[in-house]
């Protein structure tokens, strides 16, 4: 394939950039419709309780309150996965986490709705609650869901090859427990939904429903609304306005989306619900706290002989994407390198905390942190350079990994090479001043899941294109722009194929009434799948234009070149050489495209005129389009994409998760310094090479790489959801400690293009794969700087300092001893909770509040 593109590969401002920089673009909360009411949700104050009585009468009598909605108004269960329909719009009989949805008040204003929430009387029977996954797995009674014994959502046990023989063969083996604490998306836009019913003109009753929502998955939302409301999908229109970031947090149906629709039905008026920031934290669906017991064996030449992992995920109170998350953890653990023997035991456990779901790098991030850290340790054990041990274990594509994943394009070798070169790894590593170090790590991710979560054979993406008489191109796609550049990618591909300028292309996206089905923006599938569908739709419509233009230009269609808003004859056209513009396929049968009677009469006169003019040397895009419309009638094309059968994975139980038509690869080097006095870690620079197949829009690709690395750095150093008895202690953006500009390092993105054989123009994903490498790269750099291995993320000053003191055999540090009687003796153990273990009011034996309060230390009065 030639690199001679006119649109793709060039840095391009997003087609919606002006809407965003001027504030003119509308996000869901910016919308209002006449007669719109406001909904506010009552949340549970208990982590686990039975609802014995709800009395909404006082709230209903409140002036300005239109309706109060409770669980029995919409009793059908739903969930994003077909195997996990365990949620209700509002709690039916039980609440399962602090923040669970109990009732919704619909009122004329937010302040009245808030007032009315306090007038709802709810009686709870408090049940014992489970906050720690390993404790939760021992539960016999008071299960979180009656159908899930031992509070186990799902467990998988996979063995590939012979792990025991692998370890026997190894020269060095490392074994350790790693913990990655819980993080959340914290997208800047809080979730918002506006739901409105239309009155049916025939029945005179509420008919069609329109929902505007901040969602990554309009089609799934339409599907789940239809389940809960018992309406046909065709009666529900989901429109996705601009979305202010998702990162996975909007990739499933969030309670407010269902509640708003149920509330609009009961209140008989349009209802908008927008979460407060605190509610966004409760809605969560982030990356679960993960406990990883990992064992890896290598030979002295660096080859990995076996990997054994036991992974426990603290999934929260509902299934959400949990079954997929726990499978991704195993499936992608073994597919970055050539690993002959793998044993994986994964447990997805229910606890009384908000449900965890999909977050950028879904399922792969925490195990990657453990694996890359351990590989670094093994490199040190056998005396090998950490970059080299990674190079020794590369796959030899095209190949199928031991767990059945097909790998074609594989840019990892080049990624490692480039980061090593740019960071001066060989010259600088080990020679930096004390307290400063370099670390390397790799990662990868799917370019869309080869098997959709709703098992069906329908295409994952379909795109329609319509071209108007003046050469305006309209692309209809269900793909969801969430800030990643989906609409721009679609426009670029259409313009590149049609050889027209980007300004001609208008993208109509993510409106279930207008756009064909696309399963949404998640698992980094859009460029690969919606991109391929766009490519096919554009090629189809181009074929029609080429057929008409060829007639006018007196040559065969395959000799035409579409470029720069013109249709030209290939230089080889007259010589008869069969070299042709490859994306134009020969037309099959001209008779089959001939038009109607009127068309033929019209065409007769035009043909006479054309004969007089003689064949044209070249045509403008408009002329060619006019010729095609005159010849064929309407000028439309459609294309769809379904992953090929060979890419859909093996046959074992759970084999459906992990396979992808193509994988992206990343290698990163981080440079950090560690303050040995305070334990504070500063990241100075990250070199991040990412194999995205082909960079369709380099500005966007770099933006995605930088954004992923930055978010990984947040998880590595500061971000953590801190729990105390099922209560989130830091439900605010400042307390959650998302890094600001002053805490953010320089990130040098390096684009590697491996040109995938099946990607659109060779492109693969670029938005998620880079995240996972950042955390272990920083961990390994900390080791290089001060010689301690951190096994628990984030690497806060407390954790770094206690690791340093343990290394120096010093007494464990207690920063708050004696000053505050409620202060923790240990930091953030079990379930991220500070120090309280246990169920409801019962306190852990070491809980300071059960001991006698020590006398205040000096200084405190």
């Amino acid at each position, binding site marked *: 394939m030639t690199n001679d593109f006119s649109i793709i590969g060039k840095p391009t401002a997003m087609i919606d950039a002006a809407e965003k*920089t001027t504030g003119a673009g509308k996000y869901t909360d910016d919308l209002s419709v006449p007669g719109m009411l406001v909904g506010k949700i009552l949340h549970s104050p208990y982590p686990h309780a039975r609802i014995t009585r709800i009395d909404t009468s006082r709230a209903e009598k409140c002036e300005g309150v239109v309706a109060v909605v409770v669980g029995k108004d919409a009793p059908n269960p739903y969930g994003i996965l077909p195997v996990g329909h365990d949620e209700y719009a509002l709690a039916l009989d039980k609440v399962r986490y602090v923040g669970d949805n109990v009732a919704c008040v619909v009122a004329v204003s937010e302040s009245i709705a808030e007032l009315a929430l306090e007038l709802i009387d709810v009686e709870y029977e408090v049940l014992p609650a489970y906050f720690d996954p390993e404790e939760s797995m021992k539960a016999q009674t008071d299960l979180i869901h009656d159908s899930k014994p031992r509070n186990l959502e799902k467990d998988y046990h996979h063995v590939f090859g012979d792990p025991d023989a692998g370890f026997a063969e190894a020269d060095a083996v490392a074994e350790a427990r790693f913990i990655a604490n819980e993080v959340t998306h914290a997208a800047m836009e809080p979730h918002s939904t506006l739901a409105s019913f239309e009155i049916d003109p025939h029945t005179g009753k509420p008919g069609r429903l329109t929902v505007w929502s901040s969602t990554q998955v309009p089609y799934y939302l339409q599907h789940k609304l239809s389940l809960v409301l018992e309406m046909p999908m065709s009666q529900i229109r989901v429109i996705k306005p601009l979305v202010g970031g998702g990162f996975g947090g909007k990739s499933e149906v969030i309670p407010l989306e269902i509640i708003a629709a149920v509330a609009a039905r009961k209140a008989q008026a349009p209802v908008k619900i927008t979460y407060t920031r605190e509610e966004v934290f409760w809605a969560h669906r982030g990356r679960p706290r993960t406990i990883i017991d990992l064992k890896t064996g290598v030979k002295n030449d660096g080859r990995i002989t076996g990997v054994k992992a036991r992974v426990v995920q603290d999934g929260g109170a509902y299934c959400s994407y949990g079954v997929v998350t726990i499978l991704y953890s195993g499936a992608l653990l073994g597919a970055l390198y050539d690993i002959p023997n793998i044993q994986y035991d994964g447990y997805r456990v229910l606890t009384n905390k908000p449900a965890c779901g999909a977050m950028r790098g879904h399922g792969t991030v925490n195990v990657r942190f453990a694996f890359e850290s351990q590989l670094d340790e093994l490199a040190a054990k056998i005396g090998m350079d950490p970059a080299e041990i990674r190079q020794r274990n590369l796959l030899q594509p095209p190949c199928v990994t031991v767990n059945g994943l097909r790998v074609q394009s594989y840019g990892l070798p080049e990624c490692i090479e480039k980061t090593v070169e740019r960071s001066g790894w060989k010259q600088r590593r080990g020679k930096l001043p004390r307290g400063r170090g370099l670390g390397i790590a790799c990662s990868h991710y799917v370019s869309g899941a080869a098997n959709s979560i709703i098992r069906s054979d329908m295409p994952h993406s379909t795109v329609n294109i319509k071209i108007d008489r003046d050469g305006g191109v309209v692309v209809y796609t269900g793909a969801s722009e969430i800030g990643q550049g989906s609409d721009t990618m679609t426009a670029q591909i259409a313009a590149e194929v049609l050889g027209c300028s980007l300004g001609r292309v208008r993208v109509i996206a993510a409106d279930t009434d207008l756009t064909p089905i696309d399963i949404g923006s998640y698992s980094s599938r859009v460029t690969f799948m919606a991109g391929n569908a766009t490519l096919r739709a554009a090629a189809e419509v181009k074929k029609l234009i080429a057929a008409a233009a060829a007639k006018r230009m007196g040559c065969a269609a395959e000799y035409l070149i579409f470029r720069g808003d013109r249709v030209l004859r290939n230089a080889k056209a007259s010589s008869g050489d069969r070299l042709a513009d490859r994306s134009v396929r020969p037309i099959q049968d001209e008779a089959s495209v001939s038009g109607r009677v009127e068309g033929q009469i019209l065409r007769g006169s035009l043909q006479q005129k054309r004969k007089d003019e003689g064949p044209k040397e070249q045509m403008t895009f408009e002329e060619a389009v006019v010729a095609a419309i005159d010849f064929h009638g309407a000028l439309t094309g459609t294309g769809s994409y379904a992953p090929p059968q060979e890419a859909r994975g093996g046959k074992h139980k759970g084999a459906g998760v992990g396979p992808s038509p193509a994988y992206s690869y990343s290698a990163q080097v981080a440079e950090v310094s560690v303050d040995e006095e305070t334990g504070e870690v500063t990241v100075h620079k990250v070199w991040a090479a990412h194999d995205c197949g082909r960079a369709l829009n380099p500005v966007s690709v770099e933006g995605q790489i930088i954004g992923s690395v930055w*978010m990984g750095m947040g998880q590595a150093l500061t971000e953590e959801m801190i729990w105390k008895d099922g209560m989130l202690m830091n439900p605010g953006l400042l307390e959650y400690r998302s890094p*600001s*500009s002053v805490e953010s390092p320089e990130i040098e993105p390096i684009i590697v293009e491996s040109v995938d054989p099946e990607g659109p123009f060779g492109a693969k994903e670029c938005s998620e794969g880079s995240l996972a490498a950042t955390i272990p790269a920083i961990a390994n750099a900390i080791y290089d700087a001060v010689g301690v291995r951190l096994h628990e993320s984030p690497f806060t000053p407390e954790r770094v300092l206690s690791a340093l003191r343990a290394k120096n055999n010093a007494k464990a540090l207690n920063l708050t001893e004696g000053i505050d009687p409620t202060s923790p003796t240990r930091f953030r153990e079990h379930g991220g909770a500070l120090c309280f273990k246990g169920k409801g009011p019962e306190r852990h034996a070491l809980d300071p509040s059960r001991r006698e309060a020590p006398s205040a230390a000096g200084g405190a009065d």
Partner: protein
Amino acid sequence: MKKELIELRINGRSHELAIEPSALLLDVLRQDLQLTGSKRGCDDSSCGACTVLVDGVAMMSCTLLAGSCEGLEITTVEGVSEHGGLAALQKAYGDWGGAQCGYCTPGFIMTVKALLAENPEPSDGEVRAALSSNLCRCTGYSQMYEAIRAAIAAERQGVAVAE
């Protein structure tokens, strides 16, 4: 609560409004005036998505009483475009990838506008320090720095993007 009549001057135009004394400037802008460019990302001045200029000073409108802004000149993101076209800063944010999802962008535009009004050639450190009042979850800030440098260069060369 009984409403009061106030007059706010926003983007060079005066608006007479009846508002509750407790109404926040952000809510008045978004709900009463439909100026939805300023965003609500949190409720406690931690994210900066609601930043507007009050007499040229970048302020977070989510924790500012609308009634306290009477007689002051308020500029929102809707008032930044020049002569019906994009200001250099807005154009540069688009070209250099400074905006991804765009939700934080209006706040950043206002913060940078205030910075450049006071300090037309800020150092990298000064830009970082100024931007730390706002949060972004998409970009990692790097491409914003490039956008700001490009906007300063464009202004210096007198390249009016709105020509």
